[in-house]
């Protein structure tokens, strides 16, 4: 997913008054059913959260906001980002713990499986968390939290956002670790059916405990504006990180091929990355400076302004679990041309997307079809496309379906220690299974030691910011008219 996808956290936290107003209006309808019985105390854990930007980050943020709206208590745990450490509150009292853990690689923390237990246990007890929801298989912290939560007897949910192959040594190892991590997790959520198949195979899971809940986009952020585009030429928009996995090499073949054939064709490329250099080379080699614009990294709020300048959106990814970019583009009323990889064929109906094989020839054919439709005027009106797409994926729907998972999970029993050890040994192979069973026992002993050191009973209970007795929600409902300009507070 494009780098610029997180967004709201950025804008809503930093933008004063105006943005808060938009949240309030956004959150107004149908909130707080006070008589709801099954509210949960949910703790989202992932290494990836604002100020980092990406699909996982925006997913966690948006899902949390909608769950708060539905009356649950939600907190987020992530690692410290530079100066951003300690506890912060985001919109509607979403409490975020930035823990002082060392980052190892690619914003993922190092793991020893034990060092995070004291901190996480303290948080889980203090916030009276009942469900741990971890995100992203690349996040070591997410896996640590799952491990500790099971030791503490809490319910666990895991969301997998990415696809993984089976062919090379590194994926064999990571898949083994995923098997260990998920074999006793209560429920797993995947973002597409392909992703579900992938996860079930990778972690050798029972498919019944894997739910498919897609990502969503905020349709109000992505509205069409046909007057912004120049109808004398045809503009193809590409917004993606410029890396190999996004198929930028294919793009470097498509640009010269089509630009030579159609003199009235322009490209706009948004995004940054190591493959930018080959696009610049192509532009140089074929003298396309006035027709191929490379915009560099985009802020999320600018994405829509770039999208509406185009007629056709091109996605050349080589692998993709869900692909929010094509939904955003379709929501802006563009005709989408994309490679047929991963979960992409599930995302949009056939009349809104042209699917191609991942080769220059096939993608050029697909684009030419879109161009001829555009020229003959047979493409549907952007407004019509938008109205259709906006019903597909909404965060409310995602939250509703995730809530069902929580309800289901909260009725299940967490495996007691002996069964958990059995499960590990029988499910993960003799060597890995026994190793991790031993680690689980050590973790349990460590937990007993910590409980002896600081008993649960003397840990302060935090004041709920959200949830049924949330200080924030009550205050907010009493005084929401008067305090629209109230800034996000920071406290410890």
């Amino acid at each position, binding site marked *: 997913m494009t780098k610029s996808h997180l967004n709201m956290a950025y804008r809503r936290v930093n933008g004063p008054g105006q943005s808060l107003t938009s949240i309030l209006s956004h959150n107004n309808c149908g909130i707080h059913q006070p008589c709801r019985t099954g509210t949960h105390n949910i703790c989202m854990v992932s290494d990836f959260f604002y100020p980092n930007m990406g699909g996982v980050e925006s997913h966690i943020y948006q899902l949390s906001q909608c769950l708060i709206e539905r009356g649950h208590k939600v907190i987020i745990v992530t690692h410290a980002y530079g100066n951003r450490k300690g506890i912060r509150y985001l919109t509607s009292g979403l409490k975020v713990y930035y823990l002082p853990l060392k980052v190892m690689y690619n914003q993922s923390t190092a793991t020893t499986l034990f060092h995070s237990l004291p901190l996480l246990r303290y948080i889980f007890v203090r916030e009276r968390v009942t469900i741990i929801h971890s995100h992203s298989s690349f996040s070591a912290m997410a896996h640590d939290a799952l491990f500790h939560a099971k030791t503490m007897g809490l319910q666990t949910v895991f969301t997998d956002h990415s696809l993984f*192959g089976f062919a090379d040594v590194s994926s064999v190892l990571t898949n083994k670790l995923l098997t260990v991590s998920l074999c006793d997790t209560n429920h797993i959520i995947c973002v597409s059916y392909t992703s579900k*198949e992938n996860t079930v195979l990778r972690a050798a899971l029972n498919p019944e405990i894997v739910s498919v809940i897609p990502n969503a986009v905020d349709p109000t952020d992505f509205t069409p504006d046909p007057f912004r585009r120049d109808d004398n030429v045809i503009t193809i928009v590409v917004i993606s990180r410029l890396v190999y996995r996004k198929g930028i090499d294919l793009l*470097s*073949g498509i640009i010269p091929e089509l630009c030579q054939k159609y003199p009235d064709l322009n490209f706009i490329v948004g995004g940054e990355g190591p493959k930018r250099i080959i696009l610049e080379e192509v532009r140089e080699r074929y003298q396309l400076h006035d027709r191929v614009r490379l915009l560099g990294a985009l802020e999320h709020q600018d994405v829509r302004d770039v999208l509406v300048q185009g007629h056709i959106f091109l996605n050349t990814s080589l*692998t993709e679990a869900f692909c929010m970019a094509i939904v955003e583009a379709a929501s802006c009323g563009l005709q989408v041309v994309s490679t047929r990889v991963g979960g992409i064929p599930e995302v949009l109906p056939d009349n809104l997307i042209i699917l191609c094989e*991942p080769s220059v020839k096939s993608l050029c054919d697909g684009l030419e079809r879109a161009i001829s439709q555009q020229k003959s005027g047979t493409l549907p009106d952007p407004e019509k496309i938008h109205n259709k797409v906006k019903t597909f994926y909404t965060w409310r729907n995602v939250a509703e379906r995730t809530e069902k998972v929580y309800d289901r999970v909260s009725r299940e029993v967490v495996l007691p220690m002996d069964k958990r050890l059995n499960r590990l040994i029988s499910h993960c192979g003799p060597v890995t299974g026994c190793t991790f069973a031993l680690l689980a026992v050590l973790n349990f002993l460590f937990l007993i030691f910590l409980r002896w050191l600081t008993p649960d009973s003397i840990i302060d209970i935090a004041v709920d910011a959200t949830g049924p007795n949330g200080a924030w929600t009550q205050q907010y409902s009493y005084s929401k008219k008067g305090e629209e300009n109230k800034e996000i507070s920071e406290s410890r």
Partner: protein
Amino acid sequence: PYPEPSVRCEVVGWQKVLYERQPFPDNYVDQRFLEELRKNVSARKYQYWSVVFESGVVIQQLCSVCVFLVIWWYMDEGLLAPQWLFGTGLASSLVGYVLFDLIDGGTGRKKSGRTRWADLKSALVFITFTYGFSPVLKTLTESVSTDTIYAMSVFMLLGHLIFFDYGANAAIVSSTLSLNMAIFASVCLASRLPRSLHAFIMVTFAIQIFALWPMLQKKLKACTPCSYVGVTLLFALSALVGLLTISGVGAILFALLLLSISCLCPYYLIRLQLFKENIHGPWDEAEIKEDLSRFLT
């Protein structure tokens, strides 16, 4: 029962799409689950005898190392006169040089554009320099204990065997490193010989057997497979006989090693293919099959 069933009444079957709200729970598992799973897409079927034939490269290299060590032993014991080895080596190099061009009718030479004058020049330069430096080579490792030299040579020759380019496309393969290790081992061993002439001839022989001989073999294998099999057998036999004159047990062990590599290992490889389970599906990263560099040249 789903909250807002926007599903048309006539639709009952499950669809693998996300944009439609379907009347199934989110954890529903359809019969079509994993239907796009493919196994062993790129698995190869091996023929026993072709694998045995391909194992010839490994046999040849093992025998080269063996022959080299046997010759060194003879020199060290004073049983082999250096002049004699030099004469034989020179003669066989000349024969090999002529053969190298004869096998493919000179097409390889035309392609590379290398002249005979250039060959002669590099041979002369090499021989002169090795001859000039051989007194240095002789005394180079005098202060190092002989055990260390032996241990180092063993590791270097093992390294040579490990990194040698047997034709596999793997990251570990490095023919430069492999050749360097072999030459280093030969320099180590040569420094333990009685005189500097011995050292010079030992290093020259190492170049012949580790650098020139594999090139000739490769060409033989590509152009005349039958003669390659014959040459490999002969070479293996001579290595075995040479080893037999030094140590009977060593020769038997070496023979067993060669047999297991050429006969048992291929059999085992083919048996293990039955257990291969390589999973492919729509989640795999797509491969770009075409050559995209044409757009930039």
